[in-house]
């Protein structure tokens, strides 16, 4: 029953999460919390670990959550379920992709999704960077919160104005984390 629930949940996420891996964070977060699958703190560790592991971040999440729920079988089920909806959709679409590209109504449908994807990404940025400081007034006006804001801004400007290698970028932030917190 738990495995079926896991499978259906990841099918749903796979079918409705537009905008790629980082836009999936609000989905995973909500489902983990609702089903009590893992602690929020443990899941953020997975997000951090995923940065130094190769490959798609969403699979780190599905494999981890699946493992927590049902061991290796759970982990397989969750990862397959996450990839299944778009796999099936793409097999159909790739065949007709010229028609797909030029269909105005489909284009309009996907245009409607894009602002929602921005909303998803804003929530992801909040969950990753600021959520832990909105627990109390003390946490919000603490020195730690200030350091966090400065780091987020610094990161943004590094990405905006340099062509830094992603691994180097993550390594810098790991070191900054050790030094500053």
């Amino acid at each position, binding site marked *: 029953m738990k495995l079926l629930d896991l499978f259906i949940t990841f099918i749903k996420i796979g079918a409705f999460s537009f905008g790629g891996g980082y836009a999936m964070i609000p989905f995973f977060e909500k489902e983990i919390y609702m089903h009590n699958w893992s602690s929020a703190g443990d899941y953020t560790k997975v997000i951090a670990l995923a940065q130094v592991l190769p490959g798609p971040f969403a699979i780190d999440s599905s494999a981890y959550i699946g493992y927590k729920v049902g061991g290796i079988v759970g*982990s397989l089920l969750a990862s397959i379920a996450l990839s299944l909806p778009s796999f099936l959709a793409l097999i159909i679409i790739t065949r007709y992709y010229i028609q797909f590209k030029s269909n105005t109504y489909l284009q309009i449908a996907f245009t409607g999704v894009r602002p929602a994807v921005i909303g998803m990404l804003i929530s992801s*940025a909040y969950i990753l960077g600021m959520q832990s400081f909105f627990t109390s007034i003390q946490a919000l006006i603490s020195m730690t919160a200030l350091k966090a804001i400065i780091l987020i801004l*610094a990161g943004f400007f590094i990405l*905006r104005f340099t062509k830094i290698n992603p*691994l180097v970028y993550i390594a810098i932030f790991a070191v900054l*984390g*050790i030094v500053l917190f």
Partner: protein
Amino acid sequence: MKVKLLMQLFISFFKIGMISFGGGYAVIPLFQRELVEYRKWVEIDELTDMMSIAQTLPGIIFVNSATIVGYKIGRFWGAFFATLASITPTFVLILVITAYFWKYTDNPILVKAFTGVLLGVSSLVIYSITKMWKTAVKNYFDIILVVLSTLLLLIFKVNAIIVIIGTASIGFLGNLLIFKAGGMNK
């Protein structure tokens, strides 16, 4: 012959899955090198088209593009093996860490490093928002949708699936009206 092709597909996407860091968009240069220049399976223009479909559909961008390229080269089984190969390295690595090395993640130094990394990822996400903004937000109506979906997610804690379906439907109707109105003006 077919088996050899499927094996090559598997190896290629396994390889890309092993060396791709930094999210969906960072795989594009790796795809170019492996699929266009080395294997000569697709042309660069084709790859660009495929990537735009991979990004439009739900799901993981890297895995979606593996499915599309795999299908183009080897039909159903091509798509199957390319997709499987694209998720295998990550899957195995995180599973090994979760099963055998999870206790080390409580190490205080590592916890601090994680804190730093998460803030770095937060900037990464903010940066990708600024890059997407121009194509995603074209008028005031879109801005309302961005604000609406953000509020629903963050303040009202509404399920992300409901937010996507809701805002996408409103967005579809709104953009349809704008499209029809624009059509009449012409």
